[in-house]
């Protein structure tokens, strides 16, 4: 999957699960800028599942960030890219 295509899917998932209407950008911080909380992360996981075709677990992504502020749309796309199946 191309980076741009993946980012498009991630942006769509973030937009669909955000607590308020947003137009997500790569630099947006999910908690600080977009208002995500731990419960909303479940909606994000499900939205990503719809986009990616496989259940998604976000705890590794959440735990791997140095701080809450590092949970950005870009870091999520990077995490998803790292977990993509070869050739998908």
């Amino acid at each position, binding site marked *: 999957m191309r980076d741009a295509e993946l980012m498009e899917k991630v942006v769509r998932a973030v937009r669909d699960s955000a607590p308020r209407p947003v137009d997500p950008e790569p630099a947006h911080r999910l908690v600080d800028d977009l208002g995500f909380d731990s*419960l*909303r992360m479940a909606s994000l996981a499900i939205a990503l599942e719809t986009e990616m*075709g*496989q259940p998604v*677990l976000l*705890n590794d992504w959440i*735990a791997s960030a140095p701080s*809450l502020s590092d949970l950005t749309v870009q870091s999520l796309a990077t995490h998803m890219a790292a977990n993509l199946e070869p050739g998908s």
Partner: protein
Amino acid sequence: MPFSPEERDGVLWLTLETPGASVNIFNSATAKQTLELMRQVDPGRVRAVVIRSAKATSFINGAGVLLVTYVKTPEDVAAESLPYREAYAAVRACPVPTVAAIQGSCWGCGLELALQCDHRIAADDHGTQFRLTEMSDYVEVPLFGSTRFLAPVVGMRKAIDLLLWDDRWGARRALEEGLIQEVAAPAMFPEAVEAFVRRVVRGDVPSQKTAPPRLGPDPLAVIAEARKKVESIPPLYHRTFGDTLDLLELAARGEVGEEHARRGLLATTASTTHPNAKAAYGMFHLRQTAATLAMWGAQVDEHAIALGGEGPGVLRFFEELRKRQPLAGVRVLAAPPADLIRAPVAHAPNSPGAHAPNSPGAHAPNSPGAHAPNSPGAHAPNSPGAHAPNPPGAHAPNPPGAHAPTLTILVGPNDARGAEDVEVSPPLFPPPDSGADSLCWPIPGGPFVELHAARGARSGLAHALQRAGFQVALSRGDAYGSHQLLGAALAALASMLLDGETPHTVDRALRELGLFRRAPALLSSLRPLGAYAAVALAGRAFGGQAPQGLAPALAQLEAPADFRAGRDAPGLIDEFLLWLLPVALDGSFQHPSFVDLAARELLDFPVARLSLCAHLTPDRVRRALEGVPARLPARARARAEAYAGAGKGFYR
């Protein structure tokens, strides 16, 4: 701001509503505002402070898991928890009487906040539940007062039950145990709180904060007894449980000051920064995923739900449906037999919980579009053998006088399609007075409901059950996923015995895996389904080729075993997991998060290992296959090999 303060007739009403969340979270913003509000209380003007919730289903659910995820060092714990500790101390030191008016879930730090108050009143509804979630859900030592202030209120024994053994109390139980001072009908809760506060202001209600401590007889002996019990639980948890008991003992010896606070912070630091807690947060996210999916996709076409989980919790569910305020959107049409609670129950053939062959909806194809296509996580069609015939002896007729308890409830008016009858199968797990309690491990499962739903886009029932405090899993096909999971677990254990392992060695392996609930408890959970249920369900896990001696082997597992008498056999853990893998891959549950929920609540799969499906990575399965004995059925082995070979786990 999270709290909306309102001063009226000399009473400061603090109404909590966490913005943008379905439940209240005592986050750092709430802590800072609490501290500020407490500093502003003027005893010359304010005669009482009331803390209440604007959300009817949640008083306070927790402190915010996301933040805790970033607590990595002792310094982090000290710094991040400081606003909370200051806020709680300020409530405790409030110069005027404080009242916690509790409606909805009062969990973890919510209960600890209520403990700082002078008075507690609660609504007598389904959603009001007192529970300390720290140990059971997060493997953490609670930090905000329960190790100091709970035992003096409810006694040491009950405090340990709440802190260590995940006891969950409704409002009436909380009243009986002295945790709260009054309960009120939910419809009249605001008025009851107003009246209660008026009595508090008049000085007619004694403060629970300043009342003489009632630790109960010989609290140190009670703690010593708990320490013995802790020796039997999985080693994964020894440190955290031991530290909590140390803090209780310190408080029982009268040290509730700085030394207690210092050691409490150390204990919380050790537990919060441990990998156990990090894994447990992952399970929290999976619970939320399952809850969200259940609300999105619960259309109950087959008119059947299976209940599992904690016996008393499930029975309370029946009782509440029968006697008390109806759930919104669910109306009781017919009560279960009055003797359900006392009578051992066998299930009628062809009832939904009995896996009757040719039941309505059997062999129904999986619904299209419910989840991602072709993923390995329980979306595949049922595997060959899943519909195998029952082994001899299964589904024998009920003994005379047995009941097939069903409860017909009407779903509506929240449902777009209108009313529909839903039949409730007997709860898994026996009632508390059935004589099986002594076989159960102390941590019960959570109230858990499996909705057997064929295709979905309706949420009324699932939502109502979640509001009632149940965790909901969705399944489809011709069998309940709960039954498949328990059957596979029991088949694994029986297979080990049939091959010459001792019950003690099997028990030791389950302890090492991290299961509180071991073979006798797993067996007793199926007892309400009838005498033959365990044999039938384990037989199914063998693919219909139940081995000779299955029933005696299961009978052998009923007796409590002594792990000390067993040998170390780590291969048995792998073998046990490989038996569960086909259920996770091809069973009736509609999503891996539902498998994980059921594995947690029915099998007690440890949160310290995150979850069953997350644990079963292709690499781990590949390694497990290298050492697994030949007794693993060829079908299970082939399925595991295919899964490991594909290299694609349950979760991305």
